[in-house]
């Protein structure tokens, strides 16, 4: 969809690591080790999370106060007020974000989009959808872990079952047969939503280089989800860093090839592109959070 942030979508799809496939045969055996290691992996993410959270919690009431004073009460026109009660989002990082948005747009314009167009011209759509399925399948660990963190045991189980079915019957995850044959839907979930589920506020909006729109909380979530990649603990940095970057780039280009008019569509109808992307991200995350808290299944 037009307003969805391209690159964030990919990161979330691919958080688990393509290389998970290699250890697929040993998956069951390793699962227990993973659940311990998830904790180990989280210790880094968790540590950063605690620091950033602390910083954020100190900063955000001050900011809320500021913006509350600057803004008038909500509009009189009645419900529903929309996200943030019809008020502008607190945006202390706006100058940085603005620069990053322009940087990302340039990266897209000169690198990602041309490659994605060329790739889309030679690879037919079903094949590219299968590549998307593949990256989604290898991202099972963060989804599994976050369903577990939110004590949704059935869904965590569904994720394991989906991984098993799609990796075998779905030919290494190229086909989502767990959904089409067994009706097992993917449960999108990430650590940002888990934090939100336990009451952590989003914090200020931030645009990350290459990764696109996020918030302080969701950035912490990205780091934590990224730390759940077993490859990172099993291989030295000069293997896993290029591997992750490569996987991220591939997933990103594949996603872009499936959404060729993404930015063009947004820009065509936007009066203020920064505001359109910001609100699109904030609304999308608020909707996902509502679904997580309600317990509604939602897809990619």
């Amino acid at each position, binding site marked *: 969809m037009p307003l969805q942030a391209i690159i964030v979508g990919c990161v979330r799809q691919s958080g688990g690591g393509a290389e998970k496939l290699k250890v697929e045969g040993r998956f069951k055996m390793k699962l227990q080790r993973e659940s311990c290691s998830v904790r180990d992996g989280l210790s880094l993410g968790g540590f950063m999370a605690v620091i950033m959270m602390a910083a954020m919690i100190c900063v955000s009431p001050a900011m809320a106060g500021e913006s509350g004073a600057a803004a008038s009460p909500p509009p009189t*026109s009645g419900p529903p007020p929309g996200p943030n009660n019809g008020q502008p989002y607190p945006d202390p990082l706006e100058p940085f974000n603005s620069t990053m948005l322009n940087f990302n747009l340039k990266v897209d314009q000169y690198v990602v989009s041309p490659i994605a167009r060329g790739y889309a011209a030679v690879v037919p759509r079903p094949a590219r959808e299968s590549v998307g399925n593949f990256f989604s399948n290898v991202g099972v660990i963060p989804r599994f872990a976050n369903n577990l963190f939110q004590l949704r045991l059935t869904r965590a189980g569904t994720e394991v079952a989906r991984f098993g079915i799609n990796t075998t019957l779905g030919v290494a995850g190229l086909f989502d047969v767990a959904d089409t044959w067994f009706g097992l839907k993917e449960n999108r979930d990430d650590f940002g939503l888990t934090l939100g589920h336990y009451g952590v506020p989003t914090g200020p909006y931030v645009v990350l280089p290459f990764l696109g729109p996020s918030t302080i909380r969701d950035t912490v979530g990205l780091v934590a989800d990224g730390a759940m990649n077993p490859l990172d603990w099993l291989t030295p940095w000069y293997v896993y860093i290029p591997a992750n970057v490569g996987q991220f780039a591939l997933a990103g280009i594949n996603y872009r090839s499936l959404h060729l008019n993404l930015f063009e569509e947004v820009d065509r109808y936007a009066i203020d592109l920064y505001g359109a992307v910001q609100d699109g991200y904030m609304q999308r995350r608020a909707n996902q959070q509502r679904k997580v808290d309600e317990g509604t299944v939602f897809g990619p």
Partner: protein
Amino acid sequence: MNGNRSVLFVDRGSFVRRALGGLTAVSIAIAIGIAARADSGDPTAVARTLVNQALSVLGSNMTTHEKQERLRGVVEQSFDFTEMSRSALGYHWRDLTPAQRQEFTRVFTQFIEDSYLSKVSDYRGQTVTFTKTIQLAPGYSQVSSKVNQPQGGEPIALDYRLKYIGGQWKIYDVTVDSISIIANYRNQFNRVINNKGFPTLMADLRAKSTQLANALGES
């Protein structure tokens, strides 16, 4: 039809005239009642009428220009552009003079219409399924629909938000994949007004509208 007959029989004795007159009145009342229920008494029907009319225009073999002219009429009868404008400006609406509000509503209406009409040439035989209608608040409803893609791919969730105004349900917002379009514009407009002022917003809106209208003319 009954109306015409009663006119024809108007001079034939008072009994016939009264009987037919009564009948006419009843049938007109029923017709109005049905029409009112179908058009404005039920939010689902309003959205359904809009979509059916739009789909029949889009699926016809009119030229793109003819389609756009027809659709402009279809859109104008189902949307409440004043409510949309007020909502899109949020708290800034109260700071405007009545003349500014009127001018903004006019320009924003033009912009929204041009935005929707510029999508006409993208139509590829999509179909629409209505899924559910919920009440958001007293006098506010949301009609949910799915736009099915004929070439496959995930259907797009398109929801219509309606407000009961002056005895009619009118659309004041549309959400795409649960992202409210009006709330999205509100954030953009807030930023432009706060950073550059209301006149800049008006200038930007006019420029974009012209751009979209020119693209309409070319297609």
